[in-house]
């Protein structure tokens, strides 16, 4: 049964030795006082964490709470600045990702560690090929790959190139890869984000089997339902500190959320006064050339926040990207202020008062080497306020941008430092500043609070409030359910490229949204493939 003993390179011998030493020791992993600092942020602040044999230990917290830093430390991606790291009773220093794998620590990250140009089986065995004098035993590897995939119950062809698989299938490859060798500690980082319900059930069954075999599992998730279902213990992280470790059956969902947010949930999300007025943006039957959005209709009114919820890869982000002219449209109509637009281009959209704020600010939002000033005025250089023809009005620019920076409460409130020196929250403010540098009426936010701390989050929400009062229409796309649930006046739900629901008033609640996610999932809905090149590329 699983995991199959790996006959490769002495891994077996190693585990045997360890087993005899540690079988009776309660803790598989014990971390004490782990701290990790990144430029401008203390990502982990004196965190203690332990994992027993055969338990599922859930890490719970907001984005930026330190979960991913912690699992990266455990997986050996980078070392902690201080603290003790005990694994199977031994102190580990200077752990590398490779060593971690040899010792039986297998991480499954959200950014996949897959090579898109290589096939599934080549990826599964990457770094631990069956070989003799470097000559590959391809047949054995392919057979083993088939066996493993069959055991996991995944629907995967080992000869396919990974780059041509959907995100869900890539997720399965990643999981299969982690389980290929003798695993003692499995790290799962939001593994169900792109899986269908049927696939999720298979995964949970697998987790149960592994638990029964004594494997320790660290499970990172936001989803209350599944946390309660599989967790033995839960550790809550907030702002780089561990707030509490509790037994799953001793805590309620509300208590968990309050631990995570550090305050009552009403305080975290400001009260927003929606005063819906006329339609500013209307999208009818939009289908994208990539197939990631099919026949979607929605509208956004001035004075309200229109939320769009959905799982990773459901097409919600592509939808607003297409409206802004970033993803090619195949058919459909977009109406701005009641008039049809035909020119899907960022330049034209900005002129029309539509602005898109990307989720990946480093990749798409900011020129990190350039000063704050240039990054804020970037999308407004065609305006007479900033440039007379080709000549930039530098004095006016400085003044205007300084005003915006002050309004956004950027810290420090300076406009000349390079953006690369700022923290995540401040970087987001710089991007948002663009919306204030020119007259924007339709704001398309794509995961606006990813990777920023709670304080900055609040400020982003406050800014949204302010924008609403000024009569803007806000489209909020977010994978963080609490965020869209609390902020939206109307909430759309997308699933597998289609708009499956529009919720209003009392209907906006977690159950209703989750019901939409899992509604029409056929057992092998995975065949409804969406190319996930972007996912792989961004992992590169």
């Amino acid at each position, binding site marked *: 049964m699983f995991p199959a003993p790996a006959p490769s390179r002495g891994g077996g011998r190693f585990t045997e030795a360890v087993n005899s030493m540690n079988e009776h020791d309660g803790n598989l992993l014990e971390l004490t006082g782990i701290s990790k600092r990144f430029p401008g942020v203390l990502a982990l602040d004196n965190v203690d964490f332990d994992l027993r044999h055969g338990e599922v230990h859930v890490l719970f917290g907001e984005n930026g709470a330190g979960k991913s830093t912690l699992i990266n430390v455990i*997986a050996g*991606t980078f070392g902690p600045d201080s603290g003790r790291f005990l694994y199977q009773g031994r102190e580990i220093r200077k752990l590398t*990702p*490779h060593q971690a*794998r*040899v010792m039986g620590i297998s*991480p499954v990250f959200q*950014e*996949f*560690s*897959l*090579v*898109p*140009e*290589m096939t599934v089986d*080549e*990826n599964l065995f*990457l*770094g*631990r*090929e069956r*070989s003799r004098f*470097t*000559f*590959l035993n*391809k047949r054995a590897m392919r057979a083993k790959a088939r066996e493993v995939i069959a055991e996991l119950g995944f629907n995967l062809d080992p000869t396919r190139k990974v780059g*041509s698989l959907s995100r869900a299938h890539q997720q399965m490859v990643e999981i299969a*890869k982690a389980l290929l060798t003798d695993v003692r500690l499995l790290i799962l980082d939001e593994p169900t984000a792109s899986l269908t319900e049927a696939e999720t059930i298979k995964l949970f069954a697998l987790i149960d089997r592994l638990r029964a075999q004594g494997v320790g599992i660290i499970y990172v998730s936001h989803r209350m339902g599944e946390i309660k279902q599989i967790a033995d213990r839960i550790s809550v992280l907030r702002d780089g500190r561990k707030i509490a470790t509790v037994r799953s059956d001793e805590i309620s969902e509300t208590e968990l959320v309050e631990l995570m947010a550090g305050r009552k949930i009403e305080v975290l999300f400001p009260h927003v006064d929606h005063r819906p007025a006329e339609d500013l943006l209307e999208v009818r*039957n939009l289908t994208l*050339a*990539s*197939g990631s959005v099919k026949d979607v209709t929605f509208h956004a009114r001035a004075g309200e926040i229109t939320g769009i919820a959905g799982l990773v890869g459901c097409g919600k982000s592509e939808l607003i990207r297409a409206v802004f002219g970033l993803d*090619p*449209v*195949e*058919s*459909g*109509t*977009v109406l701005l202020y009641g008039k*049809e637009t*035909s020119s*899907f281009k960022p330049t034209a959209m900005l002129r029309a008062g539509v602005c898109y704020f990307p989720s990946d600010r480093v990749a798409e939002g900011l020129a990190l080497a350039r000063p704050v000033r240039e990054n804020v005025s970037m999308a407004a250089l065609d305006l007479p306020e900033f440039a007379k023809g080709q000549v930039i009005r530098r004095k006016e620019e400085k003044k205007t941008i300084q005003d915006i920076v002050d309004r956004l409460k950027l810290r420090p409130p300076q406009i000349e430092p390079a953006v690369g020196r700022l923290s995540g929250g401040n970087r987001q403010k710089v991007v948002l500043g663009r919306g204030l540098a020119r007259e924007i009426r339709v704001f398309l936010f794509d995961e606006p609070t990813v990777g920023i701390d709670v304080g900055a989050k609040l400020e982003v929400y406050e800014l949204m409030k302010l924008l609403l009062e000024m009569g803007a229409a806000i489209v909020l796309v977010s994978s963080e359910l609490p965020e869209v649930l609390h902020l939206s006046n109307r909430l759309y739900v997308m699933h597998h490229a289609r708009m499956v629901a529009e919720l209003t008033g009392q209907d906006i609640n977690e159950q209703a949204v989750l019901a939409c996610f899992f509604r029409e999932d056929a057992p092998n809905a995975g065949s409804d493939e969406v*190319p996930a*090149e972007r996912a*792989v590329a961004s*992992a*590169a």
Partner: protein
Amino acid sequence: MTTVAIEPASVAQPKLALVSRALRRIGFLPALLIVLIVLLVLFEPRFMGMFNIFNVARNSSALLIVASGQMLVLVVGGFDLSVGAVIALTSVVTAKVMAVMLEGAPEDVTLAIIAGVAAGMGCGFVTGLINGACVAFLRISPFMVTLGTSSIATGVALLLTNGIPVYGMPDAFVKDFGRAIWFGLPMPVYVSLSILVLVWIMQRRTTVGRYIHAIGGNVQAAMVSGVNTNFYLILAYTLCGMLASLTSLLLTARLGSGQATMSGNLMLESIAAGVIAGVSLRGGVGRVEMVALSALFLSILTNAMNLLKVNSKIQTIFMGIIVVAAVALDELAKRRSRSAREG
């Protein structure tokens, strides 16, 4: 209200589709190669001449060896501008070492040859090692590193010779090796074919090849999978340097003298051969058998232009255009296939 219907790019005329499907089956490059050869055989009787065939065989052999080295570096996502300089340096060093050894002990021909060859291969090894180490450890862009080492190697080659050819290599090296004909074909053909087979085996059947491809495809993934990325990066550059040295040995042996100006256009041609063979400049993709075909294609093309008495200067222009066009077409095809797959 009209709908915005942007026509999918994949809808092409049926005839065109048929041709393109046929082309895809054989591959664009082999088809082009066959057309070129047929045209030459039909219209240029001198092409089939023994002497000409030998010439083409020698040239394409040399190009194939450098290009397969260049390919390895391209696959790990870099490139090597220093292969030309390495060829020059190897030529000079080999000739010089052999000449000096022979002067000291005229009867020890074998030792002189071994020492010369070892010194020559050493040049490629060291340059490749430096290139690789700079790229791997210092994370310097391969472009600048190899530009720098290229300048250094050329400087050393010129310094050693003052720009004058080095004579005095043993006959055994020149006549019995460099200009030898084995079983009716020039010796370099056998060498290049062995290299082709070896590199093919390495690429397809060994962990080395797999890791080199993985690094080019996604370094991060290779690293967390436990691949010693620095080692294989350095290995790729070192192999590239040594293959350049090997090319140089063949050329030097044939020429009978060591020359600091030997490389000619081989650096550009090696990159051209890789690019035409579909090796991606972004790394991760490239097959040596295709590189061999494109080396053959380029050599025959050059030969055809020579036979047609096209000015060598204009040939350079032509080569420049071909390289740019090959990459441009590749980009277009990629865009096309992407929209086709998504549509």
